[in-house]
């Protein structure tokens, strides 16, 4: 799941020079880590909704926590699906 998410991040956000191995599951996705920004968050949210049919609702969920890392994102998707 985590590797699949990493590939989705790379493809969706045009991070062509990165590979799955380059992304640490526990590293920060935004700001310091991968350096993603708020537009990337929207784009990723859309891609996750399309692929996993999981909607991340900004009003209800703790978005910062969910988007913290690949690991936290994977946990949220799996928990919502099951």
């Amino acid at each position, binding site marked *: 799941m985590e590797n699949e998410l990493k590939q989705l991040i790379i493809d969706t*956000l*045009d*991070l*062509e*020079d990165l590979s799955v191995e380059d992304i640490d599951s526990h590293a920060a996705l935004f700001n310091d880590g991968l*350096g993603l*920004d708020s*537009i*990337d968050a*929207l*784009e990723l949210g*859309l891609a996750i909704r*399309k692929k996993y049919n999981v909607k991340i609702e900004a009003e209800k969920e703790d978005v910062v926590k969910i988007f913290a890392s690949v690991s936290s994102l994977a946990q949220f998707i799996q928990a919502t699906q099951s």
Partner: protein
Amino acid sequence: MRAVEFVVQEWNAWAPGTDSHKAWQEWLGHQIFDQSVKSVSPTLVSKQLLRRLSPLGRAVFKATENFSDSDRSKPIVFSSAHGEVNKSLEMLKNMHKADEVSPTAFSLSVHNAIAGLFSIANNNHQEITVLASGQDGIAPAFLEALGLLQEHHKEVLMILYDEPLSDFYPSLPFALNAPAICALVLKVSLTGNGTPLRFCRSVATREDGEHALQIFAFLKFLVSDDKALELGNHRHSWEWRKI
């Protein structure tokens, strides 16, 4: 309007296969572009921003690379007839297919998208204007830049850019379609070294086409020995004269 004199201190332009003063001089002879070149990679931009740049945005960034960091931090007048309209067309096509619109594509489709990315990349906090003066051609960009110079800005950067429109848009009978992606950058001031020009209204009624075509006419004027350039598109006409 009385004539205004100003100086083009430096200029540079990028089009496919044509990316130096020498190449533009050669272009004068054949006026063709290397259409096999689809895009260019600017070097002075982070990878995080580079992925957001369309071929048109890349042309703009590339054309400014010969300028100094401080030049890229000056007030800028951007001018483009169509901007990223091809991006908007792609989004409309996706909507037509009932697909969802990409937030990234949407945010980068607005007319000041390239200017915004440019200001981020160059940490430019100066006054930046983005014009869309299709029918009126490139003259409004000069009026805007000269206005900034009159308001005590010593030097202003002008960036004129356009790309060919998708076949989806029937451009005929209007002369508005660029033959190739092109970005022209001019550093202008009221005094100083460079090419001094006198700019004024012309009474002639002319049909020189819209903004995208006038960029090339101005480039021809810059690299040739022509003393004057008149440009108009049915409405107002303007004259640039080397002095």
